[in-house]
């Protein structure tokens, strides 16, 4: 007798067999992938809210410690305003130093967050869901910290409004030909875009926090949630806006570090005047930025007990991306130096002898941190999924990428066209305090922010979990994604 269509059940919709081996496989998949390991939404919410409201003693120690260093940063800045840039170690040839290197470094850190979130959303890679917000907040505060450095760097802070396009009686505008101006424009655009992108995705979670708190907290979250109710119309709008923004933010991301690199590439300074600087800086920024996001994820997982959300699969995927970025960075770095070496210009030879001379310790440490450490270890899945190993590797990458910026800014400036003007640079205490203080400031803002907003986009995790189911094909178990429409 023929079956009717209604009776015919496709094999992948048949219930999983009671096979012990298959059940083991399903269990394994569930432990591996967050998307297959769904908890009821209420439990998810409770988990994230509990972490957000809990302030341990360690948290307060951290806040006080970081706050103290940030205070030292502010005091140093005030002293610098009082006595002028003269308190730093800058000299008549090296006029840009760690402040500009820090600007590049912090913009670089801020680079990866929104990029990871937006690019993976575009590519519909669902493992991004739990890490998206943690990464976006790195962008937000990385850029905010970077934004301090132009203010720290200029000689007359109280006149910096000359740089802004403010209509004035004399018709004086900023110089639109200056790379500095466009750099500032790109960074501001990226900061605004990233904030919007983060905030849009934050709305449902703010509403969730609103629904589960009382008193003053509830009033604050009610204001921030902007009346989110969770109707189908609202979800649809959220989806559309997030998709549009993720497509818009990626070109902006490219413009930011290209703009930063043009500050150097447009100058006549040997070692800076290079056409490869745009892509080279972008790769470097993603390299250090992804490493920074991994460090933050490890700390969050450890300190906030987020092991349910940040799993091995995430560290594995980020580790692979980090390794790709390391390879790309090596490619660009050596392309630049091989061209220099082949060109054999006297100035560029002076730079090369500087790298193996006065700058040799920094140069070799940079090569070790950026090449030997990541490329030597990240090929192994065991290393990529081991948190202590990843933490050490990522810290090495931070050191290496910071040194790269220091060498480009303060190192190369000490060699220029007329040998009479070769002056080496040594940092003095203000640069050290300001650099450490800026890192502390970034960490402080992040630490405080984790207690203000849900650090995991719970709705995104739940949405992903609703879309994924384990299915059996023959003897294998796969995770299958169902589109919403």
């Amino acid at each position, binding site marked *: 007798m023929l079956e009717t269509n209604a009776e015919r059940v496709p094999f992948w919709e048949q219930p999983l067999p009671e096979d012990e081996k298959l059940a083991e496989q399903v269990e394994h998949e569930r432990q591996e992938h967050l998307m297959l390991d769904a908890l009821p939404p209420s439990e998810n919410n409770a988990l994230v809210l509990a972490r957000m409201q809990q302030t341990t003693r360690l948290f307060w120690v951290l806040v006080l410690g970081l706050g103290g260093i940030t205070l030292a940063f502010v005091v140093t800045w005030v002293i610098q305003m009082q006595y002028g*840039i003269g308190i730093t170690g800058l000299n008549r040839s090296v006029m840009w130093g760690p402040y500009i290197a820090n600007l590049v470094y912090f913009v670089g850190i801020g680079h990866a967050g929104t990029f990871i979130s937006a690019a993976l959303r575009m590519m519909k890679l669902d493992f991004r869901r739990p890490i998206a917000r943690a990464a976006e907040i790195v962008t937000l505060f990385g850029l905010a910290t970077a934004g301090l450095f132009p203010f720290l760097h200029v*000689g007359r802070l109280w006149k910096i409004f000359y740089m802004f396009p403010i209509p004035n009686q004399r018709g*004086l505008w900023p110089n639109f030909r*200056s790379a*500095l101006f466009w750099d500032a424009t790109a960074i501001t655009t990226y900061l605004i875009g990233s904030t919007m992108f983060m905030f849009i995705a934050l709305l449902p979670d703010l509403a969730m926090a609103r629904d589960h708190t009382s008193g003053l907290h509830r009033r604050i979250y009610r204001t921030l949630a902007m009346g989110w109710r969770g109707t189908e119309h609202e979800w649809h709008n959220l989806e559309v806006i997030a998709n549009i923004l993720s497509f818009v933010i990626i070109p902006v991301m490219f413009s930011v570090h290209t703009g930063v690199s043009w500050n150097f590439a447009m*100058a*006549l300074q040997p070692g800076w005047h290079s056409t490869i600087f745009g892509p080279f800086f972008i790769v470097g920024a993603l390299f250090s930025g992804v490493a920074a996001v991994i460090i933050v994820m490890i700390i969050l997982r450890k300190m906030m007990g987020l092991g349910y959300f940040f799993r091995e699969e995430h560290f594995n995927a980020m580790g692979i991306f980090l390794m790709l970025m390391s390879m790309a960075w090596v490619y660009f770095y050596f392309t630049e130096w091989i061209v220099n070496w082949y060109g054999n210009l006297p100035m560029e030879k002076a730079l090369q002898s500087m790298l193996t001379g006065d700058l040799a310790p920094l140069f070799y440490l940079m090569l070790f941190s950026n090449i030997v450490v990541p490329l030597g270890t990240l090929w192994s899945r065991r290393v990529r999924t081991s948190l202590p190993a990843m933490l050490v590797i990522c810290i090495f990458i931070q050191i290496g990428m910071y040194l790269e910026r220091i060498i480009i800014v303060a190192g190369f400036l000490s060699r220029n066209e007329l040998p009479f003007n070769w002056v080496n640079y040594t940092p003095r205490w203000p640069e050290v305090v300001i650099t450490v203080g800026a890192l502390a400031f970034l960490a402080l803002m992040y630490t405080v922010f984790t207690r203000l907003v849900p650090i995991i986009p719970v709705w995104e995790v739940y949405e992903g979990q609703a879309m994924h189911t384990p299915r059996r094909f023959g003897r294998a178990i796969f995770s299958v994604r169902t589109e919403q429409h």
Partner: protein
Amino acid sequence: MAEHKWTMIVDLDKCTGCNACVVACHAENNVPVASEDEVKRGRGLHWMRIERYWEGEYPDVKARFMPVFCQQCGNAPCEPVCPVYASYHSEQENLNVQVYNRCIGTRYCGNNCPYRVRYFNYRTPEYDAPLEQQLNPDVSYRSAGVMEKCTFCIQRIRRARETANADNRELQDGDVQPACVQVCPSGALVFGDKYDHESRVTNMLPNERQFKLLEHMGTEPAVYYLKGGETDVGD
């Protein structure tokens, strides 16, 4: 179209490296004198400096001197990079001028100058009494946080033009002399208007010994150097 093209010729054959021009420049332009400590930290501040290069190995050593100051480039690298137009090209004088009041101290121009003739005021200059009495009233006093550089003594150019206007005549060659040219004992520095067909600089150029500093960078300097022969400090 600018009326003048102020040009300097530096005859390296005549330069003895005596540094009189440096001292005159400090006095004329209120250039602060950096302390010994600051100089050790690479913060020597001179609008005009004598670069001294040694040639050969001891005892067969020769010194070469090269006065270097702002080259007043026709295509200046310092101008497009300034975000606030503090460094710009004056149409009237055809010089690179630095507007101290507009400068916010990004120091981009200083990095981009291949000659490194732009100096940053890392500190507010201090003058022990009675030295503040000798400041030149024609030149503004620069505070910490601004860039400064050689102006070809623009205050003297303007004064000469005003005098000429008052006398109802054209500017003549020799009316303007920057401080360094005025004091140079060996006459190694010659200053004048290259658009004036009668001027000394026009008559001295082209010269078979002439070259411009870092000419290959396309900065079109307004300073011509005349190649020096053997300057011997031995024996």
